[in-house]
């Protein structure tokens, strides 16, 4: 790579001297930068390798049908936790997707027109919300929902996760709406459409693929998050009968069973971690694919 540096200036007596301190420093730094990139890929490969090796060996369809095991004995399964993850993330999505998209419409379609300061404030709040530690979101949902309803529940977990998903959805949806060319809006208004029709029938549909990407990234993040559900949904050894009772999630199961000395529960934790990673990476890659295809 450094060679190409020198070669680029060949001719006319401007050729670089590869052993001069300046060029030497450049070459060394190039090697260092390359090493940095290699170094960063190592943990990713190491994490994926161990998750696959340790998780895959216990994976079976039965895991999705059975309940978490008591210490020692069979591996059991994480059926209730899998359902619980779908349940909490589903509740979070039902709240945060409309909330996020409506906010994005306000930011991209209305607040911009008026050049109002509120756009700045909301934008700022979104960015700050994105930086709030997820465990603090858990304490918020606990103080708001668990205290109020008197029980740990899938709803409390879902609300905590919805706060987590909100900034991602608002940001990506705002960007998606802003990327829709202004000519679409002008054409729509010119044909006599009202604002609501312009946004809902013209601008929003054009932005749907990019919004979908954002939503999938937010869902992927929520699926893997543990801290917000830790003391909102808590955990449960049983199948859910309602959404108003303690609910197991895959991420909480990995956390709980990673700390125990019992091999069967540890193995289940690895298998659950494998399922989590598979889900999350699948969503990420799919999201990427949607944007790629559009772009």
């Amino acid at each position, binding site marked *: 790579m450094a060679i190409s540096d020198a070669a680029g200036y060949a001719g006319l007596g401007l050729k670089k001297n590869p052993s001069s301190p300046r060029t030497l420093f450049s070459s060394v730094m190039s090697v260092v930068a390359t090493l940095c*990139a290699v170094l960063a*890929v190592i943990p990713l490969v190491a994490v994926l390798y161990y998750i696959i090796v340790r998780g895959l060996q216990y994976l079976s369809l039965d895991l999705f049908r059975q309940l978490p095991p008591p210490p020692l004995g069979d591996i059991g399964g994480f059926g209730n936790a899998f359902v619980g993850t779908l349940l909490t993330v589903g509740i979070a999505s039902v709240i945060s997707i409309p909330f996020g998209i409506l906010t994005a419409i306000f930011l991209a379609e209305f607040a911009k027109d008026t050049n109002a300061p509120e756009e700045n404030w909301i934008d700022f*709040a979104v960015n700050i919300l994105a*930086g709030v*530690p997820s465990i603090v979101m858990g304490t918020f949902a606990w103080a*708001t929902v668990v205290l109020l309803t008197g029980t740990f529940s899938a709803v409390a977990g879902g609300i905590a996760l919805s706060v987590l998903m909100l900034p991602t959805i608002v940001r990506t949806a705002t960007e998606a709406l802003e990327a829709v060319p202004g000519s679409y809006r002008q054409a729509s208004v010119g044909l006599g459409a009202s*604002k609501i029709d312009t946004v809902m029938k013209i601008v929003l549909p054009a932005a749907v693929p990019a919004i979908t990407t954002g939503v999938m990234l937010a869902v992927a*993040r929520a699926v893997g998050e*543990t801290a917000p559900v830790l003391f909102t949904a808590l955990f449960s050894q049983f199948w859910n009968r309602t959404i108003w009772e303690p609910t197991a999630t895959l991420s909480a199961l990995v956390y709980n069973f990673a700390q125990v000395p019992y091999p069967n529960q540890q193995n289940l934790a690895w298998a659950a971690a494998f399922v989590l990673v598979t889900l999350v990476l699948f969503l990420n890659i799919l999201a990427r694919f949607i944007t790629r295809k559009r772009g």
Partner: protein
Amino acid sequence: MTMNPDMPPSAAPMQSWRRSDTDRFLDKAFLWLTGAFGYGVIAVLLGIAVQVAKAAWPAIQQFGLGFLASQRWDPVQNIYGVLAQLYGTLVTAFIALLIAVPIGIGIALFLSEDFLPDKVKRPLVFMIELLAAVPSVVYGIWGVYVLIPFLNPVARWLNQTFGWIPLFSSAPAGPGIHAAGMILAIMILPIISAISRDALVAVPGSIRQASYGLGATRWETIFKVIIPAAFSGIVGGIMLALGRAMGETMAVTLVIGNSNRISSASIFDQGSTIASLLANQFAEAGGLQLSSLMYGALSLFFLTLIVNVIAEYIIRRFSIKY
């Protein structure tokens, strides 16, 4: 809206130009609806602060600001302070930055300059983004069963060879502050490299060409022209990563050892962070302990808030528009 009020009411064809009242009402309602949700985001943010502060109130009254200066966490006597956790939070985040900043910027440079053809570069960028997507708890279980056993011999060697340095003075027991710092470094690496890369890519090519044209080598250009131009973005990214590292919970809780006091300056000590304390004790706590945990959560909220506001400020204020 653009109707002329002086228009005679008999101008029937003009009448159809005016949108119906329901139509206009719907538009207004739609604006209000979206606005309500927009302001709702601010309300959620304030709601978090208010709800957590309310739950923390008994502990705030009891301990005041001394809460942050005492390292006594004693559920038996019902006396609480989070100095040890504050220390753990800051030290682990600092170790993480120490490792992740140089490597992250190195990666960002590697992936923003023309070292690699696009065909190789794009999958590499994607892989590093995936590093950010792996759930925290998965890093945690990996940390417990893979990273700690791997770090142990290294830590033991450091302790035996450099034990006279306070930093390495305690015998490593497996989990500890160093392991938490390491795992945080891995977790914030993608944030630093992604944001730095965005900042570096945004530097216009003409500046680069001008530098090359003056005879600068690649790295002279990078250090003296490109990095200064992208500086605010890089620093903003580092601040965001710092906020993330301080609030990170699951992976840290699993590898830090969860000791509630500062035993020495050694990084091989077991420790705890505010987030790990919450994860460990919240579900079983009650009374003043619970409200102390809430106080801890509030401190963490403001700590990350300050860091994130500074990050926002740097990114907005100092970003050079080309």
